[in-house]
């Protein structure tokens, strides 16, 4: 349903992604893993149409979305849980969620969506009047996930949800992601935490220095010595 082909992205003259082709099918949970600086966030921002493509194309549900605005991309059904949460920190939890359903068609489902995300994160209902910037990192991550869900997306882009969280929170966040996925959501999960991502993903890409260097099922990637050695944090067998 989401398909990028031969995408190249650059910051000024400095290229950050070369010839990247990835796709996410309906209902899939796909991971893109890679070390810091690999270009993961660049890819997320490109898919959200915050960065222009220098080369290549992107299609969403068969429509060419290579040249559209972020507003239009969101309207097609992409929601982003950005790296570092990027909440509207001076606004309350519920105001952040309201921004999630800012678009008219998602606004119509506001009450229903609110009930759903509060069921997923009961703590957010309790804290709905709290200024989001004053919450803990884990709770902020919940707000970021809930805000994205409020837009009732077709595909969820999740950029480094584990960043800066305590290990126990990381496990919780991954559980939530799996739960959302089991509900039928198509998810593109971008992570540095390779092991945890491969645990939950159905398919994965490895990105390094702006290039895709491997693609496959998690078990297959784990069995490839050059991948396991370089990215999984243990020596090849």
């Amino acid at each position: 349903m989401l398909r990028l082909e031969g995408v190249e992205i650059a910051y000024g003259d400095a290229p950050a992604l070369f010839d990247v082709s990835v796709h996410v099918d309906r209902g899939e949970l796909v991971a893109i893993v890679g070390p810091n600086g690999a270009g993961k966030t660049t890819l997320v921002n490109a898919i959200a149409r915050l960065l222009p493509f220098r080369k290549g194309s992107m299609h969403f549900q068969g429509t060419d979305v290579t040249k559209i605005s972020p507003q239009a991309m969101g309207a097609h059904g992409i929601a982003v849980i950005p790296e570092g949460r990027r909440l509207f920190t001076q606004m309350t939890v519920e105001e952040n969620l309201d921004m999630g359903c800012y678009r008219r068609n998602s606004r119509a489902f506001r009450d229903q969506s609110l009930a759903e995300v509060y069921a997923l994160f009961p703590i957010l209902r309790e804290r709905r009047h709290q200024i989001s910037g004053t919450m803990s990192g884990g709770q902020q991550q919940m707000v970021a996930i809930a805000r994205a869900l409020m837009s009732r997306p077709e595909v969820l882009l999740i950029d480094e949800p584990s960043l800066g969280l305590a290990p126990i929170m990381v496990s919780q966040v991954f559980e939530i992601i799996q739960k959302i996925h089991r509900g039928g959501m198509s998810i593109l999960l971008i992570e540095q935490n390779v092991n945890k991502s491969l645990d939950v993903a159905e398919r994965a890409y490895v990105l390094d220095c702006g290039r895709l260097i491997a693609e496959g099922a998690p078990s297959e990637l784990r069995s490839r010595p050059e991948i396991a050695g370089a990215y999984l944090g243990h020596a090849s067998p």
Partner: protein
Amino acid sequence: MNANLLAQSALSGLFSGGLYALLGLGLSLSWRFLRIINLSHFAMIFLAAYLTYQCTAIWKINPYLVPLFLIPLFFVVAALQQLAIIRFGIDEFGSIVATFGVTIVVEALLQLIWSADFLRLETDHLKGSMVLGSLLVPWADAFMFMCAVTTCVGAWGLLRFTYIGKALRANVENPAIASIFGVQSRRLSLLVAGSAGGLAAFGGVFIALLFALTPSQMYSWFGVIFATVIMGGLGSPLGVLVAGLLVGVSESFAMALVAPSWAPIVPFTLMVSLLTLRPGRI
């Protein structure tokens, strides 16, 4: 000093404070949400004041009708100015220079059309005062005050409770993320600029109603209005209202208790002490 005089001076301070808030609100909103320090706000206020004079004193139009067409007119003009600011990519500091240029041009225009002589709008509407106990309450001031408070509270409500208000606050904090959720920042910026223009027109009507007009008078408002806006916290209508009232009443007390010449020092003293006590509010 008797209590009656003190009460009367508190009242007149509240009234001036309401006007400060009304005049400062548009400035505060465009500073916070557009990152534009719009000095031409003052020129717009005075242009509106002169147009009110023209319509009411010369063309004999009912003064209550004047805002009904001045506000939409100024909304459009201010939105067009914002389009130009976007087109030329003018930033916060550039905006001071550019809008000061506009101010000077408008001042020259006012002088050309209406001369530098003082003009006083004489109207039968809102004349005289009501007596409240021992206090004398001028109708015009009381009406202005009501409008100012209503406007500030209304603006607060819009920012706090509507989707557009939330979108404005979200957009100023993180435009990229806001855009993914569908916020159209250019449209919003035209709306904010237009509203600030409409507020300038509204304020201008009251300037014409309450003061004798001369073009250069617009500069005398800079100090007290900027002090009010900065103290109120940018983009906070209730903050602007409270700050305006605080400045107005303090000025009024300084005049009554010390000497009239002390009044201009008050807003700055207040502003500096507040910024020292609560830094990082801007």
